[in-house]
């Protein structure tokens, strides 16, 4: 079980990616070595009437350099404030939090399904898999967005050497349609493979992934989101219903759950 620490780190790099997407890299982050794919951090906004911290998945972490990267879309008040952070600004990080993705077996085909801002933890997951010797060609990285500019950080995916399957609603980049439709086609065309699904993205997409997993009897994991007042499991605010019965906390019992485990 990971023990969260609160660290005053600072912004090392601020990159504007496509559209409204940003990448922030924090330095002096001593807990970087503990950040595994799936983990998230909880960021304090500057003295502000916004009260909650904001949760951000680890997009990459460098244990040696003590660096940690997040990638986010400036959509609401909190993420717009995050986008304002500048190089050398101090930032208060609580983390790492939550559980992480479990590794696939050697022979399994990894089917990654990223939707929108669900991309960062999966990018980190794929990176670490490849780094650990898992064959890049055994990884299929589906990445869905509304339009071309929502498929961010492409050079990194290309460099990884994984099979890249971009999908956009409007067909402006990659296949046209919903990412889960493309995934289903892939599953149908490759039903001889032993596949494992890893998904993160908007709730409807996660629900579709959950359905896919159950329909095709494929194991896998979903990384969930929920409004998170505390992020450490004490407020009971971020709950999701189990298929069995009762609620679990996304922040502490998740954010990664098995396919079929929760009611979406």
């Amino acid at each position, binding site marked *: 079980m990971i023990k969260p620490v609160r660290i005053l780190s600072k912004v090392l790099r601020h990159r504007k990616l496509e559209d409204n997407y940003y990448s922030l890299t924090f330095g002096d982050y001593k807990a970087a070595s503990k950040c595994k794919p799936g983990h998230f951090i909880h960021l304090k906004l500057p003295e502000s009437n916004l009260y909650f911290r904001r949760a951000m998945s680890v997009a990459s972490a460098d244990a040696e350099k003590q660096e940690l990267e997040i990638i986010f879309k400036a959509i609401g008040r909190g993420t717009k404030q995050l986008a304002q952070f500048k190089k050398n600004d101090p930032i208060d990080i609580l983390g790492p939090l939550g559980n992480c993705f479990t590794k696939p077996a050697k022979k399994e085909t990894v089917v990654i399904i990223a939707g929108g801002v669900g991309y960062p933890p999966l990018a980190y997951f794929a990176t670490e898999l490849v780094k650990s010797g898992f064959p890049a060609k055994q990884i299929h990285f589906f990445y869905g967005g509304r339009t071309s500019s929502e498929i961010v950080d492409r050079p990194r995916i290309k460099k990884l050497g994984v099979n890249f399957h971009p999908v956009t609603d409007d067909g402006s980049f990659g296949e046209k349609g919903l990412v889960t439709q493309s995934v289903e086609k892939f599953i149908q065309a490759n039903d001889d493979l032993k596949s494992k699904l890893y998904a993160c993205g908007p709730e409807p997409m996660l629900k579709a992934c959950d359905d896919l997993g159950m329909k095709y009897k494929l194991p896998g994991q979903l990384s969930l989101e929920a409004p998170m007042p*505390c992020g450490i499991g004490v407020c009971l605010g971020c709950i999701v219903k189990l298929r069995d019965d009762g609620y679990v906390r996304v922040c502490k019992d998740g954010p990664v759950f098995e396919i079929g485990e929760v009611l979406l």
Partner: protein
Amino acid sequence: MKPVLSVEIAGVKFNNPIMTASGCSGYGEELADIYPLSILGALVTKTITPEPREGHPPPRTAETDSGMLNAIGLANVGIERFVSEKIPFLKKQTTKIIVNVGGKTIKEYVELCARLNDQDCIDMIELNLGCPNVSEGGMQFGSDPKMTERVLKEAIAVCSIPIIAKLTPNVTDVRVTARAAEQGGASALSLINTLVGMSVDHETWQSRLTFNRGGLSGPAVKPVALAQVDAVYSAVKIPIIGIGGISNYADVIEFLLVGATAVQIGTALFVEPDAPILIMRELSAYMKRKKISHVTDMIGKIRKF
């Protein structure tokens, strides 16, 4: 000279006046991963009810300006699982343990207190007399002085652990319920619980909480809490535990000055789970600088105009 932070309430000695607030520190396990609970004056548990409760469906929290709304709905493991699963962990802690309980009827409160009376690691019991997040009438004892007095009298009859009455701020005059609780035999009062509030999403027109109403907490409510502690301080003789928006050492001092003997930190733990450590450090530094030898020297010492 090291400033003395310890305080005593109903014969129980607390190492310092900083407690966690009910519902904001679970049963202690998660915070114990971040720092040893022994640094706390006391840990106050989530409200325990006779039966386990799932609480309301999500969304059950919402962010507001300098605060938040919650309608968790008293999700908790219930008294039996609390005794079997949580007490063993709490027993191992060297901090003081305050168990917060809530019932739908006087009988339920009494049974909860009787059940806890068997346990030997519980330093105080806190009766949640005013949680706005459950529909059942019983939970608004806090606004009825007669019920308040009766529930305390009956609980004390079956329970030798000193009892704190946690009052609701959603009343016309909190001194009335405060006096009723004192009359009923409460060893101390804690206030405030949350203010009734609401929030709507202007885009979807949907209430931001499934329960619609929720409890407002955080820095936004601090002025209200201070005013209520101040009013109660001159109305009763028993000690007061101040709660409401406390986030830093200056807030703690404000509460001491209006009459609190100790304080509880709630919502601020969500933003800074280690707030108690920082507060303690800065409170000590403040006392050194101001040459205040004992934290109790500040209680009720507000200079009014």
